[in-house]
């Protein structure tokens, strides 16, 4: 595989979160705008950037010129506290979690390029004393549903049209919740500092998790989680020890695979949205890894452990056969059983300071680091 092209931009702020704006056109995946949030500074910010495509452009006088691909800051807005979570809700609204315990909704006005707070849930994460407690993560579903979780072990369910949380699960966790994501319309999964995955069914009135998963052995905190974009029962989680774990939520409580990768806490893990055989991780040790499972997947469909059928129908037939015959339908579940080798590529060599956040869309990977820089990498070979 050809080397990825790396573009770096020093932005004078440590980046804690970075997210591509979802494309407003349903039929293309492309987007050239993304949002970033900063942390650990006198004044933290939420910024919107444009990363123009690498082709030559036409300037005001109608002359063609090579853009030089410089990152353009579209707009920025102040943020109170560290940005600890940031997700797009729609193309022009962004949910931002703060270390002060609040969650804010930022609106981007395209005509004026202004970015400002349109609503805010103040202090929804707090200690018994009432003092604000860091919110650690947010996740969104549809264009109005948001969940947030924090160091107080609380999970809040928010609707953008309501001032108050729809629901609060006060004792969702005894430890800090580090990451949360939607599994289904009304089902979320959280990871925490005691190394457990908890699934909450928001339809049920009980505050107890409906399923709990945990790693064997020592309690290693889990820092992040990502759901497989098409096979919703597969999740990947990143541990404090830098280990990537893959879980099959249909199976019993332990991970399917543990893969050692980073030498320090893994801060984010991301499946490629349209090509989920590829996965990306970043870590405190300053590395960004590209996990290519596509070779595993071709082997699996060929020798088809237990499937026997053509690759096209593998998934389908197994869903019919029910949980008694859990076949291998994804490279992520095949690695361990098949002892297949996974291709792992380091994408950011020579980076020494932590990389806090990554996001991938189409061929461009974004990474935000404590070196006060944003990296834009073209990862060839995937779409």
């Amino acid at each position: 595989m050809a080397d990825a092209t790396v573009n770096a931009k020093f932005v004078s702020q440590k980046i804690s979160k970075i997210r591509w704006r979802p494309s407003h056109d349903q039929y293309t995946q492309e987007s050239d705008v993304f949002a970033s949030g900063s942390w650990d500074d006198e004044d933290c910010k939420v910024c919107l950037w444009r990363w123009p495509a690498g082709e030559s452009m036409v300037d005001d006088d109608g002359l063609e010129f090579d853009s030089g691909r410089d990152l353009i800051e579209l707009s920025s807005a102040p943020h109170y506290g560290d940005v600890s979570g940031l997700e797009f809700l729609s193309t022009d609204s962004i949910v931002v979690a703060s270390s002060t315990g609040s969650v804010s909704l930022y609106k981007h006005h395209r005509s004026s390029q202004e970015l400002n707070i349109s609503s805010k849930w103040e202090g929804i994460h707090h200690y018994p004393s009432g003092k604000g407690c860091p919110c650690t993560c947010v996740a969104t579903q549809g264009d109005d549903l948001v969940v947030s979780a924090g160091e107080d072990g609380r999970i809040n369910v928010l609707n953008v049209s309501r001032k108050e949380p729809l629901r609060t699960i006060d004792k969702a966790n005894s430890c800090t919740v580090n990451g949360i994501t939607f599994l289904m319309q009304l089902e979320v999964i959280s990871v925490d500092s005691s190394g457990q995955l908890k699934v909450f069914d928001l339809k049920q009135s009980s505050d107890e998790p409906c399923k709990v998963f945990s790693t064997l052995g020592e309690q290693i905190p889990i820092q992040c989680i990502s759901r497989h974009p098409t096979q919703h029962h597969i999740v990947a989680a990143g541990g404090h020890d830098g280990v990537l774990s893959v879980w099959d939520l249909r199976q019993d409580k332990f991970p399917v695979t543990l893969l050692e990768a980073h030498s320090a806490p893994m801060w984010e893990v991301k499946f490629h949205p349209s090509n989920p055989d590829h996965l990306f991780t970043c870590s405190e040790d300053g590395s960004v890894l590209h996990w290519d499972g596509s070779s595993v997947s071709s082997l699996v469909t060929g020798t088809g452990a237990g499937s026997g059928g053509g690759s096209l129908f593998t998934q389908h037939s197994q869903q019919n056969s029910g949980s008694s015959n859990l076949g291998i339908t994804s490279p992520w579940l095949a690695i361990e059983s098949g002892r297949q080798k996974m291709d792992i590529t380091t994408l950011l060599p020579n980076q020494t300071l932590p990389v806090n956040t990554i996001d991938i869309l189409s061929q461009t990977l974004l990474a935000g680091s404590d070196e006060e820089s944003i990296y834009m990498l073209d990862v060839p070979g995937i779409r």
Partner: protein
Amino acid sequence: MAERERDPYILEIPFTDSSFGLQGTWGLGNQLFVHSWNPYMMEGAQNINMKQFGTHIHEVLWEVDMHGPVTRKLVNETHNIFVTLQNLAKETSGSSLKPLLVKASKQYRSVLKACQLYLRSMLDCEESEERVYMFEEQIKIFDITELIWSLCEILWIDVAPGGIMMSQLLEWLRWHFSEGNSLYTDIQREEQPEHHKDYWDCIYRLVLQGQVDKVRILLSKHPSFRMDAFQSMDEVLRKMPQFSQLYRGNSLSEFEMKWRHWRSDIERRLGSQEFAISDNLTIIARILCGEESVFSELKDLCETWYHMLVSKMLYQKPTIQSIDLHFSIQTCMNEYRSDGRLGEYDSILSSAFEFDIHQVIKDCSAALSGWWFVAHLTDLLHHCGQLESHRLQFGSNLREFLLLDYATSLMSHRSLWQVGIDYLDSCPEFGRQYLELFVEKIPIESERKAHKVLSVCEKRNMSEQVKSICKMMGMQCIKNKRLGAALSWFLRSKDVAFATLIAEKFLMEYNENGQFSNLDVIDNLGPNMLISSRLTFLGKYREYHKLYEEEELHAAGSLLLSLLTSRLAPREFWVTLLRDAITLLEVKEIIYGSKETYELMHCLEELTKDRQYLTPDQDPDDLADLKQTTDLLNLALTRNLARSIVMEGNIKFS
């Protein structure tokens, strides 16, 4: 560098009373917290109205030059170059290191240049006068820094073979004195170039910088170019020996011979009045001959003494070695001294030409604010072996001294502390001590930041600091009534005492409420429970509850017994365990055989003997309750003993 450089800086702190003294506490890096305080007046005088004396705490920061948004780019971008260089320097040495050092030096300069360009672009869209002034000042500083750096690079880092660095010096001139070149471009665009008011000035400037090709192009545009004088000058310029030949295998003596030959030719032409019809051409010829007086006449075009120095040497002694340059410095400087054009930067440059590295570094530290420049330059010179490793009267060597200062100024910034740490890592002698002191003072507002600080410590095996940070985080959690989270911090640092404390808090909660909180943590302890016996007990006791709930009564029973007999259970908890035993003794099935029942009876006896654990506060209610429990237990135990003896007897017979 030991002597005092400047007068002490005096800062008056507002809202303080002179009748009170000041008390200060160190913050992080170059940060001090100052408040009013007088130990004598405070003693025994509670009713002093504190407001009167000012209750403010002042934060005092200094050396914050690197904290602006533009300079932050510089800090971060050069950090990577620095770290890469340190790693390379560890692996390579001697001649293979040199090209790497030259490359690093050029990288540093290009980052500096990029920041300067960025500042210029900001200047264009800035309206506030104050900020414009600030940006202009910053650009000026970057400019002079780059000038000094590139000269140092020529003299000490990218040393030309034999010390003959005229062509590098000419490059340096062209880069920093671009007036000639920009005029050249302007004039080129004119239809009648010779009418441009600066036509000849431009030519002189280019001659002074040795750019003969451009001079020939300009001359060729002159309408009189066909005249003999012009043709003769063109020929002379064409024949001028090129420095590039010096590097293409031609020996030095060969080049010198050519040069002498060329020089005598031009002197002859000048002497025979070949250029007499044009004053301008005469001036050019005089420059080419290296005539002393012509340089004084053109001093405004040279702009500075160092430009003049290089121009003069170019035509007087082109193969001069770098160590001989200083002989001509004074005459050039004297030209400019009269109109007061010499500043502090000039003395830095003259020290450089005099090869006094230490003076350069010293003056740069004083004149250029911030430690960024001197720290990086000194590091490069150190790796080049240009600094004698003499020890300072205090601290370590010069490199480490400057790096420590630079790192300290970074540590006092809210965001740049991570960069500062990498610089401290490169200080073999004191870096570690500095880091140990700094790391515990980094303010931590969230768990994520705590994890980051801990990662820094763990990577460097700073177990003391790990323990203290985890303790702080854990205590914070206890204060916020988050016992589960607190436990995870103490487990992380393997802090036995505090893990025990939390386990005790959990058990106390159980004793009071009859149920456990934080079950998700307790049930998931795993091998972690082994770090403290109290925690092990907690985990095992919870396991007993689970077994009991799952109606695994035999397993539950033997676990309960083993908790007692192994002495894992704390004495205060024995009553609770024995109470649990009652329920097991009362079930239909026989859980405990005679041997186990004896053991239980033994435990009860031991406990009743040791009364202090039963009712420490002698509360009458508790005493009555206890009496009832022991009676019940005695009864249950004897009945179970009888049952089990009968049962065991039966089994034996059958």
